[in-house]
C-alpha cells in the first residue's frame, strides 16, 4: 500500500510539473503561427511577383506614353511644316495669278509672253519649293477657238496630244514654266481631274487641289493646284455665275508630293525612326495615298494622325505617322522589376530564416526549460527521497541500537559481547552516515536553518579535541588548539553546526595523519592581514635559531616540527599573531569592549595537519559529495567522502568560505571563515550559568614557566594556561629556566617566581637529564621561603619507562597528557596544587533500570500530553519506575496544576499540543516561577523555608530528535528531552541530570 501511495505521490509531482510548464510556456506570435510560416513565405513570393509585374507594367506604360507623345509631336511638327510650305507655295501661285491677270489682261497689249513667263517663273521657283512647275491656261470658248488657234499658230490638243474634239470651252496652256513646257497647248479641260479642278476653281475663286494622281512626265504621285484668273475686277460679293463669266484663264501648278515631302522630311531630325504617310481623305471611305508606301510595315500598334490644311476647303488631307520599329521592351523596367523581385525575395527569405530560427531557438528553450523543470523536480524528489529514506532508516536503526544496548546489558560471553559491540559500533557509524546524508539532503532542499544561540567556542573546540584525543594519542600525533584572545569568549551562532564542521575537518585530519601534528587555530579574520605584513620583531624569549637543526634532520617551525603544507601557519607568521596578542593582552578588557562595537565577528579557523595530503589531481573535487581522493582511500581509511561537502555547505551557510592548501606527503591545511554574532553581556551571563563546564577560577594569578623548544607548541600551552588566568613565560630549554631561576632565586625574585614549571617531553629528553634535577636541588638548597614550583611534564604519549624516568628526574607531581583541553588541565592542576574540588558523583558509575528506579522512586511527576494513549503509556512507564504520576491533557491544565506552590518534582511535556504547545506552556511556567522567585528574594524568610528557587525540571517529549528542536527546547526553558516512545536509556540520561544528587539521600 505504501508503494501505491508513493506512486500516486509521484503522479502528483509529475502533474504539477506539467502544470508548471503549461503556465510557463508563453507562446509568442511566431510560435503560435509556426505552421503558417512557409505559407507566409509563399504568399510573400507571390505578392512580390505581382508587385514586380505591376512595376514593370507601369514603367512600360510610361514608356509608351512618352513614345506616343514623341510620335505625336514629331508628326505634328512634320504636318505643320508641310502645311506651311504648302501654303507658301499656294500664296505664290496666287501671286502669279494676280501677276498674269495684271500684266496679261489689264495691259493691252499683253506684257507677258511665253518667254517672260518662263523666265519669271524659273527665277521665282525657289519661292515654290513644293511645285514642280506652273503653267497658265486660257479660257477659250468654242466660238473663239478658231481665232485663238490662228492667233497662236497651233491647235488645241487633248492630254493625249491629239487635236481636241469639239467642246463648249477649252483651257489650253499658253504659258508654262520650262520644267513643264511639255504641256503647252494641251487642253487642261480634257483631263478629268484638271477639268474638275478648273470648274471648281473658277466657281470658288480660290486655290483648289486635285486628288492625287500620277503626274504627267514624272509619273510621281502628285496633286495639281489650280487658281482662277479673272478678266475684270469682280464685285465685292460675286456669285458663281459672275465668277464664271469673269474667268479669263487658270493658273495651275503640280505638286510632286512624293519627292517634295521626301525632301522636306530629309531636313528634319529623326526621320529614320518614323514612317510618314500623307492621305487625301476627301472621300472618307477611300483614302487616297499621297505620300508613303501603301504596304503597312512598321509599328502598327501606334500611330498618330495629324490634320493637314492645304487651303482647299473641299479637300481634306491628313498625315499619319508611325514608328519604323516596334517599341523595344524596356530594359530598365525589366531590370528594375527583376531587381525589386530578387531583393524582396531575399528579404522574405531572410525573414523566413529568422522566423524559423526563432521558432527553433524557442523550441530549444522550451525543451531546456522542460528539462530544467524535470531536473529540478528530480532533484527535489531525490532530496525528498533521501530525507524520507534516511528518516525511515533511522527509526529501525534506533531500534537496532537500542536492542544492542539492551543486549550488552545482559550476561554475554566475551565473544558474544565482542560481536554485539561490533554490531553497535557499525550501527552507530551507519547512523552517522545517515545523519550526514540527511543533512546534505536538507541543505540541498534549503531546509537547513542555522540557529543563533550564544555558545563558548573554546569549550566546543575542547570537546571536539577530546573526541579525537584517544585516536591521536594512539597514533602519536600531537593535537592542539589555539584560540586567539581577540576571539570573544561567547559568540552567537549555531554551536551544533560549528561543532560538526570542526569535527568533520579535524576528523579528516586525524584519519589521514600518521605522524606529526594536527593544529586547530582560531583567530579573527581581520587580524590575519596586518599580521602578514608585520615585520616588527617580537620580544619573545628564546633565539629562533635554536631547534632548527636537531639530530641532523631538518626541523620546521611548526607545532611538531614536521613540515606543514601552508607556511603561513608556521611560527614565522604565527609569532606575529602571538606577539600582537601579547601587546594587547594587558589592555585586553578595554580593547575587547571597543571591538564589540561591531555586531558581527568573522572568525578564521584553520586546521593544519601533517598527513598524507591530497593528491593534486583530486584537489579540485575535494568538496564534491562522495568524492574521495581515489577509490583506495575509502578502502584504507574508510568514510564516504560526504563530510567535506556538508562542511562546505555549512560554512557557506555561516557566511564564510572554506579553502585548503595541500601538498601530497606533506600535509593539508584547511581553513575556513565563519561569521558569528557578538554576544551582549546580558545573555552572556545567562548562558554562562547553564554552561556545564565552567572553568575554575582558582588558578588566577599563578605564574608558570613553559619549557618548550618549539615556539608554536609553547604558544598553545600558554594559551591554555592563560585561560585560567595563569601568567605564563616561555623558555626554550630547561637550562635557561634553571639558570634564570637560580639567578632569580639568589636575587630574591626580582622577576617572576614560578608556581609551575611545565616541561615539554621533547625538551626534557633533549636536555641532559641530570641538569634539571641538579638545578632543582640547588634551588632547594638555597632554601627560599617560597614554595617550590611544581614540575609538570607535558606529553602526547609516554611509555612507562619514560614515566618512571620522569618521576626520578623530578616530575613527581604529574604528567599532563596532550591534547590539552581546559577541563583536563584544570583537573590536573587542581590535583597538583591541591586546590580542593570534590569529585562529582560520577554519572558513569550508575546504570541500569534499577538505578532509574532509585532515581524516580517516590517522585511526583506530571505528564502533559494531549494524546490520551501517549499519556497513558508515559504514565505507565514512569509508574513502573516507582514514580507517582499525574496527568494533564493540555498546556493550560498543566499550568493550573503547576501553580505555585506545588509538589511536583518533574514535568514531562509534549511539544506538539493544540491550543498551547509545549514550548509556550514551558515559557509560562518559567515566567511564573521567576515571578515567584523575585517575590521570594524580596522576603527572605519564606525563601529560606523552601530551599533554593522554584525551578521544576521540564522535559520535552518529542517524536523527532532533531537537533534544532532540542535547541528550541532549551531556549524556552526546558531542561532536556526524551524521545516519545520512552526508551529506558534515554529516559535515564534525561532524568539523571536532575535527580543525580538526590537518590543517595532519598534511598
Amino acid at each position, binding site marked *: 500500500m505504501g508503494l*501505491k*501511495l508513493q506512486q500516486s505521490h509521484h503522479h502528483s509531482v509529475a502533474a504539477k510539473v506539467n502544470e508548471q510548464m503549461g503556465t510557463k510556456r508563453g507562446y509568442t506570435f511566431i510560435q503560435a503561427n509556426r505552421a503558417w510560416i512557409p505559407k507566409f513565405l509563399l504568399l510573400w513570393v507571390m505578392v512580390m511577383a505581382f508587385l514586380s509585374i505591376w512595376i514593370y507594367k507601369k514603367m512600360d506604360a510610361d514608356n509608351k506614353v512618352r513614345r506616343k507623345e514623341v510620335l505625336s509631336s514629331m508628326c505634328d511638327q512634320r504636318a505643320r511644316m508641310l502645311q506651311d510650305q504648302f501654303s507658301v507655295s499656294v500664296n505664290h501661285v496666287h501671286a502669279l495669278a494676280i501677276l498674269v491677270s495684271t500684266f496679261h489682261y489689264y495691259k493691252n497689249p499683253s506684257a507677258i509672253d511665253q518667254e517672260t513667263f518662263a523666265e519669271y517663273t524659273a527665277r521665282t521657283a525657289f519661292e515654290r519649293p513644293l511645285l514642280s512647275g506652273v503653267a497658265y491656261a486660257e479660257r477659250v470658248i468654242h466660238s473663239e477657238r478658231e481665232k485663238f488657234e490662228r492667233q497662236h499658230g497651233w491647235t488645241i490638243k487633248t492630254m493625249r496630244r491629239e487635236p481636241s474634239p469639239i467642246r463648249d470651252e477649252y483651257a489650253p496652256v499658253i504659258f508654262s514654266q520650262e520644267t513643264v513646257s511639255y504641256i503647252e497647248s494641251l487642253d487642261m479641260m480634257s483631263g478629268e481631274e484638271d477639268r474638275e479642278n478648273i470648274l471648281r476653281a473658277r466657281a470658288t475663286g480660290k486655290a483648289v487641289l486635285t486628288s492625287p494622281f500620277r503626274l504627267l512626265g514624272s509619273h510621281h504621285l502628285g496633286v495639281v493646284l489650280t487658281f482662277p484668273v479673272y478678266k475684270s475686277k469682280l464685285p465685292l460679293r460675286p456669285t458663281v455665275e459672275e465668277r464664271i463669266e469673269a474667268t479669263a484663264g487658270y493658273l495651275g501648278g503640280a505638286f510632286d508630293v512624293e519627292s517634295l515631302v521626301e525632301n522636306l522630311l530629309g531636313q528634319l531630325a529623326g526621320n529614320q525612326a518614323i514612317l510618314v504617310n500623307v492621305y487625301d481623305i476627301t472621300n472618307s471611305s477611300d483614302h487616297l495615298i499621297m505620300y508613303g508606301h501603301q504596304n503597312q510595315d512598321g509599328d502598327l500598334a501606334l500611330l498618330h494622325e495629324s490634320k493637314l490644311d492645304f487651303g482647299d476647303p473641299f479637300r481634306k488631307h491628313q498625315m499619319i505617322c508611325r514608328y519604323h520599329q516596334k517599341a523595344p521592351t524596356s530594359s530598365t523596367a525589366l531590370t528594375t522589376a527583376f531587381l525589386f523581385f530578387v531583393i524582396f525575395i531575399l528579404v522574405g527569405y531572410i525573414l523566413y530564416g529568422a522566423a524559423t530560427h526563432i521558432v527553433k531557438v524557442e523550441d530549444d528553450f522550451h525543451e531546456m526549460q522542460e528539462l530544467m523543470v524535470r531536473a529540478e523536480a528530480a532533484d527535489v524528489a531525490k532530496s525528498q527521497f533521501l530525507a524520507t529514506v534516511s528518516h525511515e532508516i533511522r527509526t529501525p536503526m534506533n531500534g537496532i541500537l537500542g536492542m544492542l544496548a539492551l543486549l550488552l546489558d545482559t550476561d554475554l560471553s566475551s565473544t558474544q559481547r565482542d560481536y554485539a559491540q561490533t554490531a553497535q559500533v557499525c550501527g552507530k557509524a551507519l547512523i552517522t552516515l545517515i545523519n550526514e546524508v540527511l543533512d546534505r539532503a536538507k541543505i540541498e532542499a534549503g531546509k537547513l536553518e542555522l540557529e543563533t544561540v550564544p555558545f563558548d567556542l573554546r569549550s566546543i573546540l575542547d570537546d571536539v579535541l577530546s573526541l579525537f584525543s584517544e585516536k591521536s594519542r594512539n597514533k602519536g600525533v600531537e593535537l592542539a588548539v589555539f584560540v586567539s584572545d581577540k576571539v570573544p569568549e561567547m559568540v552567537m551562532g549555531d554551536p551544533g553546526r560549528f561543532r560538526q564542521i570542526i569535527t568533520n575537518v579535524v576528523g579528516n585530519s586525524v584519519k589521514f595523519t600518521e605522524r606529526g601534528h594536527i593544529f586547530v587555530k582560531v583567530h579573527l579574520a581581520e587580524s590575519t592581514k596586518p599580521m602578514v605584513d608585520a615585520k616588527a620583531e617580537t620580544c619573545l624569549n628564546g633565539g629562533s635559531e635554536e631547534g632548527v637543526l636537531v639530530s641532523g634532520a631538518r626541523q620546521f617551525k611548526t607545532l611538531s616540527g614536521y613540515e606543514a603544507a601552508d607556511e603561513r601557519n608556521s611560527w614565522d607568521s604565527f609569532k606575529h599573531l602571538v606577539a600582537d596578542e601579547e601587546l594587547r593582552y594587558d589592555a585586553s578588557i578595554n580593547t575587547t569592549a571597543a571591538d564589540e562595537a561591531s555586531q558581527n565577528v568573522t572568525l578564521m579557523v584553520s586546521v593544519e595537519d601533517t598527513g598524507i595530503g591530497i593528491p593534486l589531481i583530486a584537489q579540485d573535487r575535494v568538496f564534491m559529495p562522495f568524492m574521495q581522493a581515489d577509490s583506495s582511500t575509502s578502502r584504507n581509511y574508510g568514510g564516504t567522502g560526504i563530510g567535506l561537502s556538508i562542511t562546505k555547505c555549512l560554512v557557506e551557510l555561516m557566511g564564510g568560505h572554506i579553502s585548503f592548501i595541500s601538498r601530497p606527503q606533506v600535509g593539508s591545511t584547511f581553513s575556513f571563515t565563519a561569521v558569528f554574532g557578538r554576544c551582549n553581556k546580558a545573555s552572556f551571563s545567562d548562558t554562562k550559568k547553564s554552561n556545564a563546564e565552567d572553568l575554575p577560577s582558582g588558578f588566577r594569578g599563578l605564574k608558570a614557566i613553559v619549557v618548550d623548544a618549539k615556539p608554536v607548541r609553547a604558544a598553545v600551552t600558554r594559551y591554555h594556561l592563560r585561560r585560567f588566568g595563569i601568567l605564563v613565560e616561555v623558555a626554550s630549554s630547561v637550562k635557561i629556566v634553571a639558570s634564570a631561576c637560580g639567578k632569580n632565586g639568589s636575587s630574591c625574585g626580582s622577576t617572576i617566581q614560578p608556581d609551575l614549571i611545565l616541561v615539554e617531553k621533547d625538551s626534557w629528553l633533549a636536555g641532559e637529564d641530570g641538569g634539571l634535577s641538579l638545578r632543582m636541588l640547588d634551588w632547594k638548597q638555597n632554601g627560599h621561603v617560597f614554595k617550590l614550583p611544581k614540575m609538570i611534564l607535558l606529553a602526547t604519549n609516554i611509555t612507562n619507562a619514560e614515566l618512571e624516568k620522569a618521576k626520578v628526574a623530578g616530575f613527581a607531581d604529574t604528567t599532563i597528557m596532550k591534547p590539552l583541553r581546559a577541563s583536563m588541565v584544570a583537573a590536573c592542576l587542581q590535583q597538583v596544587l591541591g586546590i580542593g574540588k570534590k569529585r562529582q558523583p560520577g554519572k558513569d558509575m550508575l546504570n541500569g533500570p534499577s538505578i532509574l528506579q532509585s532515581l524516580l522512586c517516590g517522585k511526583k511527576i506530571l505528564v502533559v500530553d494531549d494524546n490520551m494513549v*501517549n499519556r*497513558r503509556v508515559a504514565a505507565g512507564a514512569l509508574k*513502573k519506575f516507582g514514580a507517582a504520576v499525574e496527568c494533564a491533557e493540555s498546556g493550560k491544565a498543566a499550568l493550573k496544576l503547576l501553580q505555585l506552590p506545588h509538589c511536583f518534582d518533574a514535568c514531562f511535556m*509534549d511539544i506538539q499540543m493544540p491550543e498551547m504547545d509545549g514550548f509556550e506552556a514551558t515559557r509560562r511556567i518559567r515566567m511564573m516561577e521567576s515571578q515567584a522567585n523575585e517575590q521570594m528574594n524580596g522576603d527572605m524568610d519564606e525563601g529560606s523555608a523552601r530551599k533554593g528557587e522554584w525551578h521544576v525540571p521540564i522535559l520535552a517529549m518529542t517524536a523527532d530528535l532533531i537537533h534544532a528542536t532540542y535547541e528550541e527546547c532549551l531556549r524556552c526553558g526546558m531542561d532536556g528531552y526524551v524521545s516519545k*516512545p520512552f526508551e529506558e536509556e534515554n529516559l535515564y540520561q534525561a532524568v539523571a541530570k536532575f535527580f543525580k544528587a538526590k537518590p543517595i539521600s532519598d534511598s
Partner: protein
Amino acid sequence: MLGLGADRLRADMNRLLAFLFHQGILDEQFLQLQQLQDESSPNFVSEVVNIYFHESEKLLRNLRSLLMDREFSDYKKMRIHLNQLMGSSSSIGAKRVRNVCVAFRAASEQNNRAGCLRALEVLEHEYCFLKNKLHELFQIEQQRVLAAGVRYPMQN
C-alpha cells in the same frame, strides 16, 4: 491438560505476535508496552489499546467527515488529527498505521485530496486489520490468563 492449554495459548500468542512483527504491523514499542504491564497494572496493555481504539475511531471518523465535506479545505485540522493518530500509534507500536499516517500527512501537506482519500481508505483498512489482530491477541491472552488462573491455585 489445562496447563498444556495455557502453554499452547502462549505459543499461539507468540506466533501471532511474531506474525504481527514480521508483517511490520507492530514494532518493538508494543513489547515495551507489554513490559510495562505487571502485577500492579495487570490489564495495562489492553487498557491502553482500548483507549487507543476509542481515540482512533474518533479521529478516523473526524478525518472521514472532513474529507467527505464537499468544500473541504481544512488541511490543517486534518494534520492535527493525523499527528494525534500518529503519536498514539507510535506509542502503542502500531507501525503500519503510523506509516500510513505519514503518507497521509504527506498527501495533506500537498493539499492532494485524491491522495488523502486513498490514504484514508488505506488507513481504515490498516486500522481494522490491526484492531482485529489485537482483539484476537487479547482474546488469546484472556484465555491464557484464564487457563493460567485455573492453573495457578494448582501450583500453589
